[in-house]
């Protein structure tokens, strides 16, 4: 996580798509919460960002430790979630989350996942649904240190634009200094499938009902394995309904 002594500008890579005016009001940012998970320990957290602001988390996973972070980023003019995760030998990290933006909201998830030692696994899955003039950004960096062989890291980032005026930014970044690694990443930005929508409507669903059903399916994966999956899904559904 970058040390920020002055308000960044859009020239800074990590804030290229940020709402700088909104950021200025939140300045200086709170110190990140530091979490150290001991060897073989487990940590889980659900972040519900419902009123704007910046949430910062630094997690260090000891040998064989596991962590699962799930998030729902949907509130306020500007909502940003920063995660900095370091995995030691054989550790396992899962991130799953959704960003649901409308109006002129700017929502961001910024992750740095460092595989410092061999045989650790990380999986990141982010789904964004953006309407109106909203901007959704996912900046995901995976760094594999020298000697961290047997690393298995994946990133899946997808965004659905409900209006042509909405914006999705996705930037995966890989920095690999080891030889024997698996790093998969995929990004896609799209619109709801028109054929699917017509099919659902032809059975009697109204356009908002048909869209809600398809969007629910689109984001459902993001909460797989979350401890309070039901609550996250419920909140996400309510938010989707308000957006349609």
């Amino acid at each position: 996580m970058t040390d920020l002594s002055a308000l960044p500008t859009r020239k800074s890579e990590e804030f290229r798509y940020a709402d700088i005016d909104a950021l200025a009001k939140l300045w200086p940012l709170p110190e990140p919460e530091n979490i150290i998970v001991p060897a073989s320990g487990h940590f889980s957290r659900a972040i519900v960002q419902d009123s704007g602001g910046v949430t910062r988390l630094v997690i260090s996973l000891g040998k064989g430790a596991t962590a699962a972070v799930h998030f729902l980023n949907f509130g306020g003019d500007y909502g940003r979630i920063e995660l900095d995760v370091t995995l030691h030998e054989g550790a396992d990290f899962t991130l799953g989350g959704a960003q649901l933006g409308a109006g002129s909201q700017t929502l961001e998830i910024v992750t740095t996942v460092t595989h410092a030692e061999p045989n650790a696994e990380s999986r990141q899955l982010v789904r964004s649904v953006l309407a109106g003039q909203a901007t959704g950004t996912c900046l995901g960096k995976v760094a594999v240190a020298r000697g961290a062989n047997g690393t298995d890291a994946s990133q899946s980032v997808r965004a659905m634009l409900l209006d042509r005026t909405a914006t999705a930014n996705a930037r995966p970044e890989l920095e690999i200094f080891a030889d024997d690694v698996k790093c998969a990443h995929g990004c896609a930005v799209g619109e709801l499938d028109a054929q699917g929508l017509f099919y659902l409507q032809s059975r009697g669903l109204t356009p908002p009902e048909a869209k809600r059903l398809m969007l629910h399916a689109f984001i459902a994966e993001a909460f797989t394995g979350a401890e309070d999956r039901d609550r996250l899904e419920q909140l996400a559904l309510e938010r989707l309904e308000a957006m349609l």
Partner: protein
Amino acid sequence: MLNISNLHATVADKPILKGLSLNVNAGEIHAIMGPNGAGKSTLSYVLGGRPGYTVTGGSVTLDGQDLLELEPHERAAAGLFLGFQYPVEIPGVSFVQFLRESANAQRKARGEEPLTGGEFLKLAREKAALLRMDMDMLKRPVNVGFSGGEKKRAEMVQMGILDPKFAVLDETDSGLDIDALRIVGEGINAIMRKPDKGVLLITHYQRLLDYVKPDFVHVLAAGRIVKTGGPELALQLEEEGYEAVVA
């Protein structure tokens, strides 16, 4: 029941239907046959209200109600069912959830009480059994991983559950093996062969008509009905081909 009068429609500004007229009375099953490119699928999509299919003239009413004014979901609530030639796969959305919400959306639009979970499942089980479909398949995402024949049987299960007044079935027989064809044919009879219902069967082949006996057979060519007859017309088409019969 269904009255189509002098219907003109375009797709991407290209005229496809050019003055099509057809009446289907309650209790009747009509088959529409015709060569590739005649406008058969366009007719089904225009009736269903698919975006991109523009009506440029004529009228369509179902029991006196103007269908062309209605959105696709309103047409469904008015009692129209469209059986798709290529049913769409929708990952992540379970069939059971989709169908229950659809059935209840239609009931709501008609001012009826929604089905409870138990009532719905009982209905779904009954219709799945009618089409010899495993209930477990309906717990899967809509059409995902279904074979061609399974998709078509699933269309008929949907028709059974939604219980429409009028069904437009677009090549429901394509992709079916001999056994599945019989099951689907019997399903159509069980669900739709009733005095207050009507069916428009769009098909290339006579074989489905062995199971679902049509009251009338029409030949659609170049966007219009060019010939109408009884079931014997389908047999004649099968033997002699469209060109000879239409000429």
